[in-house]
């Protein structure tokens, strides 16, 4: 037997044994802190209630609203077609399938924007992209979309334009909700979940 075979054997064993002495390296798949901070500093993650309202009204197919409040709050009231991912179950795989779907803008909202922003930071740390926060949350939604305040007479024409949009949106949402109430059914949510397998399936 050639001596080189002994070297080969030893080399294989060393390579395999080397796997055990590698130091722990847990977070390699998460966004690193600097990048996370970098995306936090930018205000691009915030989306105003007006934009969200517009997307809903125009039935924007890229919109994916995510309600991070508790299940109870969600069942009591939620925005049209919103999905419920309670903040405390954000790490469960079942819910994560809703995030990171190609071509969808996931917009978090809660009562205010703090909880939604916290959900955003956690999701960002987990490496999800295309996620946003609805600024002001539901409180702001109520104030701006459902019951907009009339601008002063001295206000600029833009403000009046915005107001008229909000008025229209208000009628749209309150009216739509009336229908829903009378039927007693919630709009069926059908978001294509991400499949578990990441690569095309197929035979050998």
């Amino acid at each position: 037997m050639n001596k080189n075979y002994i070297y080969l054997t030893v080399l294989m064993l060393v390579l395999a044994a080397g796997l055990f002495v590698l130091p722990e390296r847990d977070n390699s798949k998460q966004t690193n802190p600097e990048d996370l901070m970098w995306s936090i500093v930018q205000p691009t993650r915030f989306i105003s209630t007006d934009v969200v309202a517009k997307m809903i009204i125009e039935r924007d197919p890229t919109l994916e609203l995510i309600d991070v409040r508790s299940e109870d709050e969600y069942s009591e009231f939620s925005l049209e077609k919103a999905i419920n991912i309670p903040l405390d179950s954000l790490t469960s795989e079942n819910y994560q399938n809703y995030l990171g779907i190609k071509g969808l803008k996931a917009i978090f909202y809660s009562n205010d924007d703090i909880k939604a922003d916290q959900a955003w930071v956690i999701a960002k740390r987990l490496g999800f992209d295309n996620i946003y926060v609805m600024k002001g949350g539901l409180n702001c939604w109520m104030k701006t979309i459902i019951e907009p305040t009339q601008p002063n007479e001295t206000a600029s024409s833009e403000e009046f334009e915005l107001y008229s949009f909000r008025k229209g949106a208000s009628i749209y949402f309150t009216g739509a909700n009336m229908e829903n109430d009378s039927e007693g059914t919630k709009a069926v949510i059908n978001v294509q979940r991400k499949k578990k397998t990441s690569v095309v399936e197929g035979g050998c």
Partner: protein
Amino acid sequence: MNTNIESVRRPKYINPYFGGVLLGLLLLLTMYITGRGLGASGAVKSAVVTTFDKVAPVHTESSTFYSKFISDSHSPMFNWLVFESLGIFIGGLISGAIFGRLKKIRVEHSPKISSKTRLWAAGIGGILFGIGSQFGRGCSSGAALSGTASFSFGGFLVMMLLFGTGYIVAYFFRKLWI
């Protein structure tokens, strides 16, 4: 030692361990590029689907198994595995040419059996392998090799059982090979 006889007995193959290391590295490269391993039987499946899509399109569409692989946008032959299998063929051709094994069409068989028996056995073996590879979700390269290397439980299972069965039934088919 008579080198003449030796060279007849021992054709120019590369060291199996060398081949193994190369194959392992190739598998790694494939995984790095495509995120999945190598495969071979998928190409035949594509060929089957294509053939019967041409011959009897209605039948193919209604068949539950075929319809998984039919799409309007492109032919099932326009498939990753088909190109890969074409590559396997070309690679074999190159290697055969380099090592001088590229010869006229011939049948290789044990001296104890006739060429006809060997061909029948090859055909039956092929049919069995074809059926088995569908249940096993891949053949020895797709399921056993790539599956085990990517730590898939199914791949490991197929590898152990494929070779295990081989050893169990080897005795009954010894005439074919020894």
